[in-house]
């Protein structure tokens, strides 16, 4: 299967003539020029070369690829949702009402006291949290953020973007936070400890209360990375564990579509005494309905406007659809599915008991090659080679949306690949739209536009 570039189909250079003086305008513009039927086929064919959650299982560990309910798309398409943010509050009660309610719902789910919806993605949520911690510590000389070695890469990057030094915390032998290592790392310089719980191995940090006390004892704050929140819905809340700040990944936990990489949304919850640091504007109820206001000690802006509204709207609809019982069931079934799948897979899984995800080891196979070979069995492979604490890691999260038959099919793919030789794996995939792609070559001589291809 091959679809030419738009520019290869028909490109057209038009002269630019406007009422502006010539020196302010370009002479011409050259872009693809195709009719609607041609475009419809172009993008339809391209879509057919792409794997989505309705194509088959998508067990990417740490990514929580859930089915995205169709009705949420209809909710996002309600004409009244398409408004400009610079309206006066009183003319915007619909949008602000959704914000207000979603803030409340997320606060309840996370055990937090206030939630901002402004961060447009999880990493932006992390930066928001880090900036809140920075503002909270203002005047103190706290320069360090502690992050476990198994944490998501964004934690490190977000800490660095705010100017902090990152202190990496080695995992304990059981895959969890090693309290001794934490003791050694922690100090009066500690601004924040960032944790995922369950962690990226799917393990619950059993010592979370002790960890929380240790961090708080030195005056630091505790941050919860919400990437794995799906495992805990309705069963445990970061706020109850001592976390002071957390972000939610609504495109993971609350079934808003990943959209090929985005948009997502990364709301941030805080405990009560951090509320005044939230980004501006924050939304609150008032006598006249909902209103936007600037929190007294706000960290300022994290997004030019109010964040990824249409993503938040989908999440709001999803949460209302599920309610308490649905959320509780989501965590139950996501953990059941992970445990069932793990049971069916003939690979070593060094750490447990895991929850919504597990990390198997491809053992003497290359995990990335094994993943490519899984493509030939018609399924999406797990996340590979990470976290590094497991050799040749296959980090697997089926989520609650898969049924037993699909999990069996996935297990069969895992097991079939496990018994194959390296040569077969290295030659994979064979049954996909494209065969193995040369990623090293792509990076060595980058060609990032059709203009670059034309130059060749």
């Amino acid at each position, binding site marked *: 299967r091959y679809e030419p*570039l738009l520019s290869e189909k028909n490109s057209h250079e*038009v002269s630019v003539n406007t009422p502006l003086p010539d020196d302010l305008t*370009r002479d011409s*513009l*050259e*872009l693809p020029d195709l009719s609607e039927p041609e*475009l419809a086929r172009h993008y*339809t064919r391209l879509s*057919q070369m*792409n*794997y*989505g959650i*309705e194509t088959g299982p998508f067990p990417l560990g740490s990514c929580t690829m859930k089915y995205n309910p169709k*009705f949420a*798309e209809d909710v996002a398409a309600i004409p009244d*949702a398409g408004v*400009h*943010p610079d*309206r006066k509050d009183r003319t*915007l009660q619909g949008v602000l009402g959704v914000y207000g309610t979603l803030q409340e719902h997320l606060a309840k789910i996370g055990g937090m006291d206030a939630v901002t919806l402004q961060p*447009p993605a999880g*990493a*932006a949520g992390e930066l928001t949290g880090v900036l809140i911690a920075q503002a909270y510590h203002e005047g103190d000389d706290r320069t360090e953020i502690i992050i476990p070695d198994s944490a*998501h*890469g964004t934690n490190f990057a977000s800490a*660095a*973007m705010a100017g902090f030094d990152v202190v990496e915390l080695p995992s304990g032998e059981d895959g969890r936070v090693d309290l001794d290592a934490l003791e050694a790392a922690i100090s009066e310089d500690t601004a924040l400890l960032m944790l995922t719980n369950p962690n990226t191995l799917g393990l*619950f940090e059993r010592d979370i209360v002790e960890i929380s006390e240790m961090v708080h004892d030195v005056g630091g704050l505790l941050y919860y990375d919400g990437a794995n929140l799906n495992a805990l819905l309705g*069963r445990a809340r970061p706020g109850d564990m001592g976390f002071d700040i957390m972000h939610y990944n609504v495109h993971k936990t609350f079934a808003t579509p*990943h*959209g*090929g*990489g985005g*948009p997502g949304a990364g709301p941030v919850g805080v405990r009560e005494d951090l509320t005044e640091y939230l980004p*501006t504007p924050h939304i609150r109820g008032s006598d006249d309905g909902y209103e936007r206001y600037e929190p007294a000690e706000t960290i300022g*802006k*994290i*997004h*030019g*406007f109010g964040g990824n509204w*249409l993503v938040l709207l989908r999440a*709001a*609809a999803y949460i*209302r*659809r*599920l309610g*308490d019982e649905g959320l509780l*069931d989501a965590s139950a079934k996501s*953990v059941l599915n992970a445990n069932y799948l793990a049971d069916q897979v003939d690979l070593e899984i060094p750490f447990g008991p895991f*929850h919504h995800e597990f990390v198997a080891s491809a053992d003497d196979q290359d995990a990335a090659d094994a993943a490519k070979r899984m493509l030939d069995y018609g399924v999406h492979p797990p996340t590979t080679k990470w976290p590094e604490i497991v050799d040749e890691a296959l980090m697997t999260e089926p989520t609650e949306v898969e049924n*037993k038959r699909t999990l069996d099919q996935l297990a069969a793919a895992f097991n079939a690949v496990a018994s194959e030789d390296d040569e077969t794996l290295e030659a994979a*995939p064979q049954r996909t739209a*494209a*065969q193995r*792609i*040369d990623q090293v070559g792509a*990076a060595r001589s*980058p*060609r*990032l536009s059709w203009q670059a291809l034309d130059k060749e």
Partner: protein
Amino acid sequence: MGTHDTGSPYAPHTPSERNAMLDAVGVEQEADLFDIPADVRFDGELGISARSEQQVRAEMREVLGENDDLVEFLGRGHYDHYVPSLVDHLADRQEFLTSYTQYQPEIAQGFLQVLFEYQSMLVELSGLGVANCSLYDAATALGEAATLASRVRETSGARVLIPEQLRAGKQGVLENYADGADLTVETYPMADGAVDTAALSDTIGDDVVMVYAESPTVRGVIENSLNEIGSLADSHDALFCLGSDPVALSVLEKPAAVGADVVIGEAATLGLGTAYGMGLGMFATREDFLRQVPGRLVGASEDESGRRTYTLTLQTREQHIRRERATSNICTNQAWVALRAAIHAASLGPEGLVETATDCIERTTAVAEQVDDVAGVTAPVHERHHFREFVARTDHSADTLESELADAGFGVHAIDDNLLQICVTETNESAVDEFVDTLQEVTQ
């Protein structure tokens, strides 16, 4: 409904399937699989009641119906253009909408190619060598531009210069990005809605890392000194970052030709329409800064059979590999919005895009004249060329007028005591006459 009605409607387990699975893993119930210490277990209720799909849709329609019906003449960084039906229908195909980041390119060629085409369109529009495949919005793109500038600039320095007339949210985000990179943000003066180049010349120095200017500006003014600003920046080894958008860039002089090193802006002027500020951060820069670009890049490659393919590339810049030494923390981006923008741009084609942009110039002039005809109202305030929007001065309190116009069903910006800002595109132009009549009434 039916069997799946208890719990999540999106968990497919039938009772017998569930039992078989529980048996296989050797527990009585799912709760037994959780390894949560009792003291942090949550046994309470969240208090969110489940609703049927029909109920949620009705409720959401009702809640959103609380927004007043306004014809919005609003812009200032967030714009409404007509989005062709094609965009919705193609972008909603689940293969695009529900796919993940393209870490397995062999089964993600479709989305990768669209992003490659998106990057290519931005390369044509900006005249710069490389564009990434999205940032969150214009404001975060500006923040990323500043940190890129601090990384690539050869001499040391800490000042970032921005125009005094700038959307506050953009400045706010920039300041948060700048702080962490030990940069300080300072404004330079404007004169009659455009850059006061003399003043800028006085302000700039060798400690300036980056100069930012916009065209069109937040007030819709087409900047006429871009060349001069570019030279000024260049003469101090500062980067010149230009803010614009793809519609405007289809007719304005190529940023590369006026010395821009980075182009940022709101690319959701294509493909999205008004969405309470949700956007699409455009980011293009010079090829020699390639390895300092924030966000994802799609590159062409070949597969085993020698056929051209596409893949995410240069990922060693990114957080999931480089962690705290990454060019940015961005991971989840706005890929699907970029896909929408690409389809919209393709749907317009070069003629359609140029026509849309030309209308944004001609229509704005015409509407400003109409507004100027209203007694006691002067428009445009700035004697400049405008794009999409302009500022009007009145004898009245702008706040009061904004409120009265809202009551009459129109949204405008009150940007100062006596200044209103008015934005017109093809989506609200049919209401212009009625709006001007109403403006006349409320200013009498």
